[in-house]
C-alpha cells in the first residue's frame, strides 16, 4: 500500500474512496484550499511550469519523481508512511500497549490542539514567502522556493486529513480555520509568533528554511513517535520532505557566505562598507540575521517549563526526538533536567522535573543540530581564509517566550539593563538599514545558469540536472 493513487480527485494512499463521508468532506475543503493558494500562495506564478518533485509512492523508490508542473496543478494529497501492524507505544503511561488507530476520547482535545498548531505553521510559511518569487536570485533558487511552497501546502493537507478523519465536526471547523487565519493578519494571525514575522528577502528566506524548518524537523520527529499511529505515520512521511527545506536554507546561506568571502578576498578587505559597495552581503549583517532567526525560532519550542508538555508525553501523544533510540525508562518520572533562570541578575541553571522540561529537551536537541550546521558554514569561511566565524547567540538572547522572555541578555549571555540593551541592539539584530540594504540587492534573475551577484551558484543541480537547466519555464 505504498503507491499513491493519482487518478482520484484527492491523491492518496489511504483508500479514501472507501469512506464516502470523509471523501465528500475533503472534496468540500479542496476548492477552499485552491482558492487560498490562488489568493495567498506564490505571487504571479500560477502559470509557470516548475520542475517539481512529486511523490508517486511513499517508499524510497517513489517519492522523488521530477517533472514540470504548474503549481496549482500539483497533486496535493494524503500520503502516510506504510503502517507497521505491530507498532507498540514506546513511552509514557501506555508504554507497551498497541499504538492507537483512533484518537482516544480522553486525549482528543489535546491531540486536536497539537495537530492544529502544527497544521497552522504550514500555510503560514507559504504566506510569509509569497512575494519572494519576484526577487529570486536564479531559476534554481526560484524552483527551490516553489518546491518548498508546494510541500508546505501538502503538509497542510496531511494535518487537515487527520482533522477530518479523526475529529469529526470540530476537526472540520479547525480545518476551515486553517485557511482563515493569515500570517501577520491583525484580526486573525497565525498561532505561533515566528509565523507572523515577515520573510522580506532571500537571506531571511534561507535563514528561515535553515532555522525554522529545522524546528519543523524536530517537532515532526517528536510527533512521529506518537502513540496515535495516524499522526506518527503522517509526520514520518512529512519529515522526508522537510529535509529538502533545510537543504535550501543550509546551502543558501552557505552560497551567500561563499560569494561574500570571494569578494572579500578579491578586494582584500574586511570592511563591511566596502563589501556592501561591491554588492554582496557583509558578514556582520549575516550574523545579525542569524541572531534574529535563531532566537525567534527557539521560542517555537514553547515555555521552558510546561505542564502541557508533561501531559503530552505521559499520555503518549508527543515523544522526544529519537525517542526509540534513547535508553532510559521512557517514563521520566524520576529524572530532572537543567533549565535557565535569572537569579540576582545572573543566569544560572536549576534542575527541574524532566517531564515538565520536555520543551527544553527538544529545544536543546534542536540547538545542537543548529550549531553543527553553523560550524559547517564556518568551514566555508575557513576554506576561503577568512577569519570571521558565525556563532549562535546565547539561548537567553532575544527571547519572548518562557521565563527568559522578560529579561535582556546579550549574545554572549550577559544579563543587561534595558539601557545597555538599547545601546547595543543594533549590533546584534538586523536594523532597518540592514534590511533595506539586503532588500536593495534583491532583483529577479531568470536567465538559466545566471545568479545574482550576492550569491554563488550551487555545486550541483537538482536531480543532477545541470546548473543552467531551465528549472522554471515562463510561458
Amino acid at each position: 500500500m505504498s503507491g499513491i493513487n493519482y487518478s482520484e480527485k484527492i491523491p492518496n494512499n489511504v483508500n479514501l474512496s472507501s469512506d464516502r463521508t470523509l471523501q465528500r468532506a475533503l472534496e468540500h475543503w479542496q476548492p477552499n484550499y485552491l482558492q487560498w493558494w490562488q489568493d495567498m500562495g506564490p505571487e504571479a506564478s500560477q502559470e509557470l511550469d516548475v520542475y517539481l518533485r512529486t511523490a508517486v509512492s511513499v517508499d524510497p523508490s517513489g517519492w522523488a519523481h521530477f517533472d514540470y508542473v504548474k503549481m496549482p496543478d500539483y497533486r496535493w494529497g494524503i500520503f502516510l508512511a506504510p503502517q507497521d501492524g505491530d507498532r507498540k507505544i514506546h513511552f509514557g503511561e501506555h508504554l507497551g500497549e498497541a499504538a492507537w488507530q483512533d484518537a482516544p476520547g480522553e486525549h482528543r482535545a489535546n491531540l486536536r490542539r497539537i495537530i492544529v498548531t502544527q497544521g497552522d505553521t504550514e500555510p503560514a510559511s507559504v504566506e510569509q514567502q509569497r512575494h519572494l518569487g519576484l526577487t529570486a536570485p536564479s531559476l534554481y533558487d526560484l524552483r527551490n522556493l516553489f518546491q518548498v511552497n508546494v510541500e508546505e501546502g501538502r503538509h497542510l493537507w496531511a494535518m487537515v486529513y487527520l482533522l477530518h478523519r479523526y475529529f469529526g465536526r470540530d476537526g472540520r471547523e479547525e480545518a476551515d480555520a486553517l485557511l482563515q487565519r493569515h500570517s501577520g493578519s491583525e484580526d486573525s494571525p497565525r498561532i505561533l509568533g515566528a509565523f507572523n514575522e515577515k520573510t522580506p528577502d532571500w537571506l531571511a528566506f534561507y535563514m528561515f528554511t535553515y532555522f525554522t524548518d529545522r524546528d519543523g524537523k524536530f517537532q515532526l520527529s517528536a510527533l512521529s513517535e506518537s502513540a496515535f499511529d495516524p499522526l506518527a505515520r503522517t509526520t514520518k512521511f512529512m519529515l522526508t520532505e522537510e529535509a529538502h527545506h533545510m537543504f535550501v536554507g543550509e546551502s543558501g546561506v552557505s552560497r551567500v557566505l561563499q560569494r561574500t568571502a570571494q569578494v572579500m578576498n578579491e578586494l582584500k578587505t574586511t570592511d563591511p562598507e566596502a563589501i556592501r559597495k561591491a554588492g554582496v552581503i557583509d558578514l556582520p549583517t549575516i550574523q545579525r540575521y542569524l541572531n534574529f532567526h535563531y532566537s525567534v525560532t527557539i521560542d517555537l519550542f514553547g515555555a521552558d517549563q510546561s505542564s502541557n508538555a508533561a501531559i503530552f508525553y505521559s499520555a503518549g501523544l508527543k515523544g522526544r526526538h529519537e525517542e526509540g533510540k534513547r535508553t532510559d525508562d521512557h517514563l521520566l518520572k524520576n529524572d530532572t533536567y537543567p533549565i535557565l533562570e535569572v537569579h540576582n541578575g545572573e543566569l544560572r541553571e536549576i534542575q527541574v522535573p524532566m517531564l515538565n522540561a520536555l520543551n527544553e529537551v527538544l529545544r536543546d536537541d534542536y540547538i545542537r543540530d543548529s550549531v553543527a550546521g553553523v560550524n559547517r558554514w564556518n568551514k566555508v569561511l575557513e576554506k576561503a581564509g577568512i577569519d570571521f566565524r558565525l556563532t549562535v547567540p546565547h539561548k537567553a538572547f532575544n527571547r519572548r517566550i518562557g521565563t527568559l522572555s522578560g529579561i535582556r541578555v546579550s549574545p554572549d549571555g550577559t544579563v543587561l539593563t534595558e539601557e545597555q540593551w538599547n545601546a547595543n541592539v543594533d549590533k546584534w539584530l538586523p536594523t532597518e538599514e540592514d534590511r533595506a540594504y539586503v532588500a536593495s540587492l534583491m532583483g529577479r534573475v531568470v536567465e538559466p545558469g545566471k545568479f545574482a551577484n550576492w550569491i554563488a551558484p550551487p555545486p550541483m543541480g537538482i536531480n543532477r540536472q545541470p546548473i543552467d537547466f531551465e528549472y522554471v519555464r515562463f510561458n
Partner: protein
Amino acid sequence: MTTATTVMKQHLIDPEICIRCNTCEETCPIDAITHDSNNYVVDASICNDCMACVPPCPTGAIDNWIQVVSDNAYSIEEQFTWDELPEPQEAPEGAEVVEAKAPAAPTASEAQEQEGDQDLENKPFTAAGASIPPWSAAHPYTNLYTHKNPVTATVVGNYRVTDSDTDSDIHHIVLDMGDTPMPLLEGQSIAIFPAGEDENGRSYHARQYSIASPRDGERPGYNNLSITVKRVVEDHDGKPVKGVCSNYLCDLQKNDSVKLIGPYGNSFLMPNLPDSNLVMICTGTGAAPMRAMTEHCRRLNKEGKYRGKLMLFFGARSERELPYFGPLMNLPKDFIDINLALSRQADRPKKYVQDVIRERASDVLALINDSKTCIYVCGLKGMEEGVLAALKDIVTESGKKWEDVHAQLKTQGRLHFETY
C-alpha cells in the same frame, strides 16, 4: 583463486554537502547508516549498495562511491571525524577491481565515479527508468580503463551506414582491442578521446558512445567492438558547428589508433534468458545498443537458443537516414517486429516513435504485461517524455494505473533509458 588485493568502491556520505537531515538513516532498510554529533556515515560492513537511501537524499551527499583498497575500507569511527571526503586510494599494481557488492549499482552514482567520469562529456540521461538491470542480466565489468590507464585500439573498419545523398552522415566504426581485455555487454558504452587540444591547449574530454556490437565482438570470436557515430555539422539551432569527436571519428582511416576508456554502464543491460522479450525504442544513433542486442539475439537464434519476441520502434526523418536500414530489413519478420516512425516523408503526416507505439498499443500492452519483457529507450534527449506519455496512455487505457506499472517496471529493472 587469486589472493591479490582487490579495489572496491566504498559508499560514503560527503560531509561537506550533507545537511544531517536523517532521511538516509530513516530510509536505510538494513540500518547501515548511523550518525554522531558530527557526521552521518555508512557502515561498509553492512551496506549492500541497495540504493534505497539515494533518491530520498535532498542534497546528493549520499551518492558518493570512492575507490578504496578492500582491506582498507574506512571504518565508521574514521568517517565520524571527517570534514571532507578523502581522495580515492591508489590501486596497488595488479589489483583486481570489484565494482559493487550488489548487482544494483546505480546510474546516479555513475556520475560521481572517481576522476574518470568528471572529464566525460555527453553522459547519457538515464533517470526516467530503472537504476538496476534485469535480474537475469550477465554481470558487467565497468571502469577497467580510466584516465590514468587508457588503452589504445586500432581502427579496422569505418563504414557509412546512411545513404550518401542524405544530410545524416552516420558511421559504423569497428575498433580492434588487440591483446587488451575489453569484456563488454550489449547496452554498455566506452568513451573516446578525440585527438588534438581545445583553444586553451588542454586535451579534449572523452566522449561516451554506446557499443553497437554484441558481447562476442563485432566479428564473433574476435576482441573487437563497434560504435555508431553521427557526424555533427550543426547544433540544435541549425548553426554550423564542427563536432570535435564525431568528426574525428568519422574521418578515421583503417589502422589509425584511438585512445579510449571504459566500459561504462551497469543497468542498460539485456535479460539473459532465451525466452525474454525486448521492446526497443530508438532514434538515430540511439540504434547502437539496439543493434547490439538484436545481433546478439540473432546469433543465438541461429543456434536455436533464442525464443523471445523482439519489437523495435525506430525513428528517423526518412528511411535513407536510418542507420543499418539495409541489414535491418533483411531480418526475418518472425524474428523481429520492426516499426518505423518517419518524420519527413513527402505527402505523409509526420510520425514519431510515440505515435507508432500508440498505433501498436495492444501488442505493446501484451508485452508490458509479460514479466519477461524489458523495454529500452535510446536516442536524443527529450524523447523519453513522448515515450513515457505513450506508455502511460496504453497502460491507463487498459484500466491499470501507470504509476503502479511504471514503479514496477523500474523496481524490476525492466524499463531503461539512455538519452543524450
